[in-house]
């Protein structure tokens, strides 16, 4: 089996706020194989954004703190990496798209400068001008070695002339990236990129800004792209456009993507594998189709049942009783048991084991896993 781009092993992240400790992510393990899109869904406050930001070690430490676990990116554990070396992993290694398009572009710089900056960093790393994260089994290799093509995710974006020119002059000026910036703007389906280049973020609509954010992240050619709810903050029509774009880009660039969302419908359309989070834990993980057809966790099952559709006329709409537990006062045993229709005495006493394989996946290679005491019975229950 090929080496996964990212494999998170038993990751726990804690926030220290005032006197309290809140474990926002508990014992989460997941794998992102090369070229696959892994979706993570969960309610607000279930820890999915914390997970997304913990992977490139973007969380401010303190107050956040990685309690235990490994974040193995391209064979190297990122948890023990000193802070000063982290920038080497970001951009060309792990890229990120943020939720809030109004805030994710710097208001003081033109669109061109923001994208060109990302391209420039990549070029300098490719040329070996600035140090780069060298993926490999060795713990850390800080030599100024060029990237061994791990970022061949987006080959059509490269303009060989620019890079060759750059090597001969060592450092190229920003304006030399113009053609490449235009390529990326076209890639995210922006009409009239020549004009957009010279605009400031406040002169653009939310959907436009999100496209530029996507272009900026892609222009670094990341080996892994983390999309943290890229469509959630947009209004519905724009949401649909950006979602279509994301889907098209996923096909075009065949990137490894971790797609975070609270919308099961969005994930169903984009992801290959799906993880469901509840109160900081990953409760189910498996191929999307499998999970939608045969959910093996009561939470997933209730979630699927409460998706409103145009043709379903159940009234009242099915909901999950109760509310998400406060992370500082988690219930004993299984965290979902107070709201679970299947709960039995053991659920209140003993926390279920972390994900265990409950079913063979058909062909995709990812086994269906669940963290429920009675995973085998979920399907037969009403």
């Amino acid at each position, binding site marked *: 089996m090929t080496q996964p781009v990212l494999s998170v092993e038993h990751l726990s992240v804690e926030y220290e706020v005032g006197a309290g400790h809140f474990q926002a992510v508990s014992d989460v393990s997941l794998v992102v194989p090369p070229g696959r899109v892994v979706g993570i869904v969960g309610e607000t406050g279930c820890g999915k954004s914390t997970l997304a930001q913990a992977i490139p070690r973007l969380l401010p430490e303190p107050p956040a703190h990685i309690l235990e676990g490994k974040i193995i990116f391209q064979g190297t554990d990122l948890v023990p990496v000193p802070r000063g070396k982290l920038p080497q*992993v*970001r951009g060309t290694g*792990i890229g990120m798209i943020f939720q809030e398009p109004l805030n994710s572009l710097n*208001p*003081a710089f033109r669109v061109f400068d923001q994208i060109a900056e990302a391209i420039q960093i990549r070029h300098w790393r490719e040329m070996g001008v600035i140090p780069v994260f060298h993926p490999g089994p060795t713990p850390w290799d800080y030599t100024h070695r060029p990237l061994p093509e791990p970022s061949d995710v987006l080959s059509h974006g490269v303009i060989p002339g620019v890079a060759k020119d750059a090597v001969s002059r060592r450092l190229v000026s920003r304006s030399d990236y113009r053609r490449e910036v235009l390529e990326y703007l076209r890639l995210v389906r922006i009409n009239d990129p020549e004009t957009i280049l010279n605009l400031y973020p406040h002169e653009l609509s939310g959907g436009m800004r999100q496209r530029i954010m996507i272009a*900026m992240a892609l222009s*670094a050619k990341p080996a892994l792209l983390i999309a943290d709810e890229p469509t959630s903050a947009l209004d519905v029509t724009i949401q649909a456009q950006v979602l279509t774009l994301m889907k098209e880009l996923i096909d075009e660039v065949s990137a490894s993507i971790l797609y975070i969302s609270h919308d099961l419908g969005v994930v169903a359309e984009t992801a290959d594998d799906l993880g469901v989070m509840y109160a900081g834990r990953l409760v189910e993980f498996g191929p999307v189709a499998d999970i939608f057809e045969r959910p093996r966790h009561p939470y997933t099952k209730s979630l699927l049942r409460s998706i409103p559709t145009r043709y379903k006329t159940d009234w009242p709409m099915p909901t999950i009783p109760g509310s998400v537990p406060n992370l500082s006062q988690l219930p004993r045993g299984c965290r979902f048991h107070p709201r679970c229709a299947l709960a039995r005495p053991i659920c209140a006493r003993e926390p279920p084991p972390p994900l265990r394989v409950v079913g063979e996946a058909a062909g995709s290679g990812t086994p269906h896993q669940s963290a429920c005491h009675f995973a085998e019975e979920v399907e037969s229950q009403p």
Partner: protein
Amino acid sequence: MGRNLEDLLIFVGKRMLELLPVLLGVIVLTFLITHVASINPCPRWYPKASTAVLAHCQAQFSLPLTTQFWNYFTKLLEGNWGASQLGVPVYPVIASAVPATVELVLASLFLMIVIGIPLGVIAAQFAGRWGDHLVRVLYLSGWSVPTYVGSIIAAVFLAPYLGLPTSGEYSAPPPFPQITHMSVVDAILAGNFPYTVDAISHLVLPAAVLAFINMGIATRMTRASMLEVLPLDYVKAARMKGLSNFLVLYKHALRNALIATVTVLGLTAGGLLAGTVVIEEVFAWPGIGAYAFSVLGGGGQPNFDGAIAVTIVFAIGVVVANLISDILYGVLDPRVEWR
């Protein structure tokens, strides 16, 4: 658009027009205060003068206040800034003192920017930890020291340790003409290297004291607006491009945080100019502050024409400083239009 050169010129023109009523108000107020405070200053000015001289002086002050004002104002409009009671004209003094003060204020602004703003970034970066507390102690100690105490401590106790001069612009009268009346600039223009070094060493201490006392507000403002900017997504996005921590802080975050700092720096102009009154007197700096001290009666006779002239100059200084900060505000923030 409201953001091109033409708009900027219109903006500056408008603000300059707004300066006129401000100046008129300042002139009227200062004139009234000086002339009402001492209705008949002649016997004190000329204690040993002949009756003829005294009578001439008193004839001038016995006119109705409105006539006195009109006489002064028309004279001022003709470009005549008046003279002290001993007959020393005001204008030449002002003309050489203003550049000297501008030099001092710019030097201390420079120190406030290169020291005060990075301190604010450091404080925000380590918010709530020892680095933050250290910076707070530093700027609060500057902020809470009265100018006269700070400048005397610097002149008497610090200067001997640092080996810095504490008096005047140069150690010896310069052999070159003082074209701009800015000590360092004149020395550079004359191509005289030893005098340039000498002028800078004379400038360091008064500028540092002025900066230390007024720096707190720049540091505080930078810290506060950095704390607002740092959690925003675009700072995280900049990190996720693979930029170093330094570039994230000083390019992406500070660029936006500076917008607030620049506004506040404009507001400190008044404080800086007020500080020069004491600091120039202590360090014998031949600027407008020391002149203000003397025309208001410090160590001699008060000088009405000089007092009004100094007030006009200070008012222009404050208005121009705020205009510059408003222009910079627009330069830094592309969302701002000049109008």
